[in-house]
């Protein structure tokens, strides 16, 4: 089976792997590199649990082939906390009790981070739209929407 080289940065650190051609980014991150924060909920692109940020854009790692990611910068939820300090989104998800089973949480946080990176003061409608590709079966979404709005408010207060 043909192996192909893949090189990218993951949460700021250089990664280089040989993967079988056709391997998804999700499987590469989880099985090769050991970053299990992206979750495989469907492998169809319908649940969003595998969401990661590629060069600033939200992507579904289950539908992205690793070999198309050479030279990119990838961010996952495992890379958000800096020096043991949680990212404001992570803090908000904790404080507002927005996690239950937790399986959708890393993908939700990725989707929310891209939103806040581009739209620091989002409306509720913006948040709803940003989370619309991510399925949660436990919470009924409202606590997650509130967590993102809470994080946005915390950010703007810090900036002020």
């Amino acid at each position, binding site marked *: 089976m043909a192996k192909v080289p893949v090189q990218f940065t993951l949460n700021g650190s250089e990664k280089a792997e040989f993967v*079988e051609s*056709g391997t998804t980014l999700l499987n590469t991150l*989880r*099985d090769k590199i*050991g*970053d*299990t*924060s*992206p*979750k*495989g*909920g*469907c*492998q*169809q692109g*319908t*649940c969003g*649990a595998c969401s990661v940020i590629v060069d600033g854009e939200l992507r579904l790692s289950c539908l992205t082939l690793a070999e198309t990611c050479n030279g990119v910068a990838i961010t*996952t*939820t*495992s890379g*958000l*906390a800096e020096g043991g300090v*949680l990212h404001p*989104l*992570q803090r908000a*998800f*904790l*404080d507002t*009790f927005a*996690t*239950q*089973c*937790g*399986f*959708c*949480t*890393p993908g939700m*946080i990725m989707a929310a981070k891209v939103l806040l990176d581009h739209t620091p003061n989002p409306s509720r409608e913006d948040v709803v739209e940003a989370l619309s590709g991510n*399925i*949660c*079966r*436990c919470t009924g979404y409202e606590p997650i929407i509130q967590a993102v709005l809470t994080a946005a408010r915390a950010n703007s207060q810090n900036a002020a």
Partner: protein
Amino acid sequence: MELRKSYFADVRKDDLHEIGQPRPRSDSPGHVTGKTAYFADHNFPGMLHLKMVRSPHHHARIRSIDTSEAEKHPGVVRVLTARDVPHNVYTILILIQIGPEDETVLADGKVRWKGEAVVAVLAETERAAQEAAAKVKVDYEVLPAVFDMEEALKPGAPIVNEYHGQNYYLYDSGECRKVRFGDVEAGFAEADHVLEQSYQSSPIEHAPTETTGCVVMPEGNDRFTCYTNTQAMFFTLDNTSIILQMPGSKLHFVGGTVGGGFGGKVDVIVEPIAILGAKLTGRPVSFIYSREEEMQISSPRAAEKVVIKDGVMKDGRIVARKVTGYTDAGAYSRHSPYGAQKGAGHYPGPYTIPNVWIDTYCVYTNRTPSSAMRGFGVTIGDFALEVQMDKLARLIGMDPLEFRFINAYRDGDMKAHRQPTEGAALIECMQEASRAANWPVAEKFMAMSSYKKGA
């Protein structure tokens, strides 16, 4: 959310240190950092991937199975059929003496629903397992199938499951679980109005974001560690021990945080075959349902049909209620005989009715076996009961909420299954709902209490 502490304050101690406190969840930091370990986050070198060859037919005899091409496929390590499974015919509730064993781990001679597991393929990669699965040749003789519960109960219907011999579960009480309380026919005769209505649901999926699965590691000490998202560790371990005819001491099940269950992960489906694969290959094995399998292969909440016949007086009292419930078990029992029986204990709902007749049936059809789900045996029944209540209220020209107060059970009332009511709180819930929804009811209802004088 608001806690209304004014209710039941006389029977509650509120000065506790830890109970009643909104402490942060200990698991949340793991969730938000992606560090929480789910079963599929265990990954071992040399792990094999298991893919299932499934029946394309609703009901068919298996004439032959040819796995030779699949076994030769590059990357394939082992192909499993029914004869590899030590105790292939099982039923999960046998642990609490609810039999008979009626389901095959891998189909043997017959398939009874579209999607039933027939052959398991273990390969180095998921892709190789998928390709090899496509090369398994199964010769089927298609048989007549039955999908409708009423059709299934008619004489001459195709028999879905020979282990039962008829298309319903045989309780010790006969073809259904029965509750008989008072004289329901006398109640109908006495009633000002009699209303009989039928309610229906279709199967519902738990749809957890994490699909059902397990990862098995054969350990150096002749034991098998199974990382699983089962909702019931020992239930699964003990059934696996029976199916594999392996002492339970050889099995080590490790769960953890599960990515949502809702009742969908109490069947014992993936673990026995994955552990068998690990035993026969000596390699770690991963068997994880695809989303398509989770949606269509894993047990759903059963479709139910509920027929309710009520006798009601003009003054609002329900004097007789007859409920006939049908649970569509699909092709195998799993937890359905239990769920159907739970319905019998739940009807006629939280109301005090002097004459009650309940029959609940567990019916077999050629569809995906159903099983437990959040509200098992009750959810669809409550839909039926509470729509029926609305119809009855309108039938006699009464406010639907006031109608419920009139019939609500209170402490000491005898239930149809002959247990006195204890700890009732339906009336207080309705009083609070009346206030919250600005849906006023007569003062006498607002003055009621679940504490019944003299009870």
